[in-house]
C-alpha cells in the first residue's frame, strides 16, 4: 500500500528540518514533564537508596535479584529493536526500513544507556562499579573475565559503541543537509557533525561500503549481547534458570519486545511530528507481520522451556515449573501468556495490522507481557531453589516501581532531546524511495 501523494525531494528537506528547528510549547511541556518525572521518580529514589542501601527494594534472601535486574533485561531487550532490525533490513534491502530506522537506532542507544543505569541501581555498592572495568590500577587486580557479568560489561560496551557508530555514520549526509539550513550555534554543531560532507560519488561509495560492513558486524554483536545477558542466568545451577535454550529464548524475546517498542514509538512520532507521508500504514503492516512471526517463535520457545523442565525428571526442576504455572506468581504467568502469545494472534487479520490504534494497543500489551516475563524468570526460579527451608516470596516495593516509571521518563527525555538534534527520519534514504527527478520529465 503506497501513499498517494509522494513528497518531493525539497519537501523532504523542509519537513525534516522543520522537526529540528521549529519547537512549540507542547514540546517544552513534554520535555519538562519527562525531566521532572525522571528526577522525582528516578534520581531522588536512587539517591535515597544509595544513602540507605538496596534494602529499600523488596528483595530478600532467596530472591536476591529483583525488579532492577528485570529492568535491565527489559531495556536491553528494547535496545534490540533498533540497530539489529535496522541492520537486518539494510542487508536484506527492505525499502520500508528507510523511514523508521533512524529513530529505531536512537531507541537502541537510549535503551542501552538506561539499561546500564539499571545495573548501577541494581548494585549494592554502585560507587565501586569501576572495579568491574578492565583498567590498570594500583591494586594490581583486574576484573574476573570468567564471570558472565563481565561478558555483559564487554558486550554492552561493544554494542553501545557499535550502535552509536552505526547511527552516526548513517546520519552524516543528513547532518550535512541540515547544516545548510540552519544558523547560529546549530550551524557550528552540524558542520562539525557532518565532517565537511559534500555528497560526492566517492563519499557515497565509501559510506555505502562502511555502512554495510557495520551492519554485518552489528548483527552478530546484537545477537551476542542478549545471549550473554541470558548466560548471567543460565550459567547458574538454579532450577528454572539452568537451561540451554535460554540464549535463543532471550534473543527472540528481545527482538519481539524491541519490535513492539518500535511500533509504539512510530505511532508517537507519526502523531506528534505529523510525519504521515513518511511513516505509512505499509510500515505498520510489515511490522505487524514481523510481530506475528516473533510471537509464534516466542511461544514455541516458551513451550520448549516448559517441556525441558517437565521431562528433566529432576524434582527441583519440576517443582520450579509447578510453581511457575500454578504457584504464587501464576496470575502473572498466565497474564504474560495472554499478552505475548494469544492477543498478538489477532495480527493475522490485515485490518488489525493496518489500523494504527490496534497496533499501538497490541505493541504496548506485548511490552507489558515481556516485562512480566523478565520478572518471572528471576522470581519464580529464585523463590524455589533447592532447599525448601529457604523458599521465599518477592514483591516489589514502591521505590522499585517508582524507579521503573522514572527510567521510562528518562528514556522519553533522552528521546525528546534526540529528535531535536538528529534528523529522526533519514532524508537521503527516504529520497531513494521516491522517484528520482530524471523520471519526472
Amino acid at each position, binding site marked *: 500500500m503506497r501513499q498517494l501523494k509522494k513528497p518531493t525531494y525539497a519537501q523532504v528537506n523542509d519537513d525534516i528540518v522543520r522537526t529540528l528547528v521549529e519547537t512549540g510549547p507542547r514540546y517544552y511541556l513534554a520535555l519538562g514533564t519527562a525531566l521532572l518525572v525522571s528526577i522525582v521518580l528516578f534520581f531522588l529514589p536512587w539517591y535515597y537508596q544509595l544513602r*540507605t*542501601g*538496596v*534494602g529499600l527494594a*523488596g*528483595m*530478600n*534472601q*532467596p*530472591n*536476591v*535479584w529483583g525488579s532492577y535486574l528485570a529492568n535491565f533485561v527489559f531495556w536491553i531487550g528494547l535496545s534490540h529493536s533498533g540497530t539489529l532490525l535496522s541492520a537486518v533490513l539494510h542487508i536484506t534491502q527492505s525499502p520500508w526500513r528507510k523511514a523508521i530506522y533512524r529513530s529505531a537506532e536512537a531507541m537502541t542507544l537510549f535503551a542501552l544507556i538506561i539499561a546500564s543505569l539499571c545495573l548501577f541501581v*541494581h*548494585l*549494592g*555498592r*554502585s560507587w*565501586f*562499579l569501576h*572495579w*568491574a572495568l578492565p583498567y590498570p590500577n594500583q591494586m594490581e*587486580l583486574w*576484573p*574476573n573475565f*570468567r*564471570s*558472565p*557479568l*563481565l561478558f555483559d*560489561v564487554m558486550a554492552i560496551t561493544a554494542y553501545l559503541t557499535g550502535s552509536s557508530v552505526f547511527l552516526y555514520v548513517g546520519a552524516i549526509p543528513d547532518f550535512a543537509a541540515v547544516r545548510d539550513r540552519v544558523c547560529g550555534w546549530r550551524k557550528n554543531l552540524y558542520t562539525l557533525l557532518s565532517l565537511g560532507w559534500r555528497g560526492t560519488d566517492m563519499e557515497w561509495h565509501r559510506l555505502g561500503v562502511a555502512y554495510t560492513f557495520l551492519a554485518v558486524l552489528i548483527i552478530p554483536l546484537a545477537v551476542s549481547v542478549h545471549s550473554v545477558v541470558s548466560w*548471567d542466568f543460565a*550459567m*547458574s*545451577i*538454579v532450577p528454572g534458570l539452568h537451561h540451554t535454550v535460554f540464549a535463543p529464548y532471550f534473543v527472540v524475546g528481545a527482538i519481539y519486545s524491541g519490535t513492539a517498542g518500535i511500533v509504539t514509538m512510530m505511532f508517537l512520532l507519526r502523531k506528534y511530528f505529523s510525519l504521515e507521508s513518511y511513516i505509512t500504514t505499509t510500515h505498520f503492516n510489515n511490522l505487524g507481520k514481523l510481530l506475528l512471526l516473533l510471537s509464534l517463535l516466542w511461544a514455541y520457545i516458551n513451550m520448549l522451556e516448559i517441556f525441558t523442565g517437565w521431562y528433566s525428571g529432576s524434582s527441583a526442576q519440576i517443582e520450579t515449573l509447578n510453581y511457575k504455572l500454578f504457584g504464587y506468581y501464576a496470575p502473572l504467568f498466565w497474564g504474560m501468556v495472554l499478552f505475548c502469545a494469544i492477543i498478538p494472534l489477532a495480527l493475522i487479520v490485515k485490518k488489525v495490522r493496518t489500523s494504527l490504534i490496534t497496533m499501538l494497543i497490541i505493541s504496548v500489551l506485548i511490552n507489558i507481557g515481556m516485562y512480566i516475563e523478565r520478572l518471572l524468570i528471576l522470581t519464580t526460579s*529464585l523463590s524455589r*531453589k*533447592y*532447599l*525448601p*527451608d*529457604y523458599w*521465599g516470596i518477592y514483591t516489589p516495593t514502591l521505590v522499585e516501581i517508582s524507579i521503573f516509571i522514572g527510567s521510562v521518563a528518562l528514556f522519553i527525555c533522552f528521546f525528546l532531546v534526540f529528535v531535536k538534534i538528529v534528523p529522526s527520519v533519514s532524508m537521503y534514504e527516504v529520497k531513494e524511495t521516491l522517484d528520482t527527478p530524471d523520471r519526472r520529465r
Partner: protein
Amino acid sequence: MSDSDSIKEKWKKYRNPGYQDKFDYSWGMVIDLDRCTGCEACVTACQAENNLPIVGEEGFRSGREIKWIRIERYWDGEYPDIKLRFIPMLCQHCDNAPCEPVCPVYATYHNQDGLNVQVYNRCIGTRSCAAYCPYDARSFNWFSFTWDKPLDEQLNPDVTVREKGVMEKCTFCIQRIRQAKDTAKDQNRRVRDGEVQPACVQSCPTQALVFGDRNDPDSAVSKLAQNPRGYQVLKELNTNPSIIYLKNL
C-alpha cells in the same frame, strides 16, 4: 612458580583445571546429624563471633536475616507419627563453588587453605553469588547496621563490620585459623588437629560438629569422613562440598 618458566610451561599450568598448587591445609567439617538436637547454640555463637548484625523483627519477617549458619527444620511423616529433623546449613566451601566464577571482581575465590572466602571490601554487591549458591548460604547486607550500646562493646576486632551492599557468609572463622597459623609459624610447625575450632564447633553441646584439616589423614575430620553414614548435600550438582553430613538412614 618462578619467573623463569617458559610461556609454554605457564600455559600448560594455567590450562589445568582445579587449583594451582596443593592446598596448605584443606579445612573441612563433619556434621553428625544423629547428634544434632537443633538447639541453635552454633547459630548464637556464630552471631557473637562474626559481628553479625541484628536485623530486627521487620528485617526477619521480610526474609533478610543475616545468618552464616542456620538450622533447617524438616517434618518427616504424617501426624501423629511425625518426626522433626534438623540440618545445620552453612557455607559448604565447595571445591567447585558455583559462586566463585560469577563474581566480576574476584570478591570471592578459593584461597590456599581450600576455603571459599569472601573479601568484603572488594564486593560491589551484584548478589550473583547468592543467586548462584544452591545452599542459600550467603547473606546480604541490605542496610548498614549499627550496634546499640553496650552491644557495640562485644564486636570482635578481628572481623570487619560489613557495610551496606556487601555479601557475606561463613568463613569457617578464618580469624581463628589465622591466629592458629600465626602461632604455629612462630613455633615452626603445622597447625595441630583440634587446635582451631570455629565458634559453632566450639559451642556445640553434643559435639555434632567436628572441624579439621582434610589433608591430614589422622585428623578427626578425615577419620569421620570415612564413616559409611556420610553424604554431601546436593552432591548431584558436582559442587564437591567440604562439609560431610553423617546420618543413619
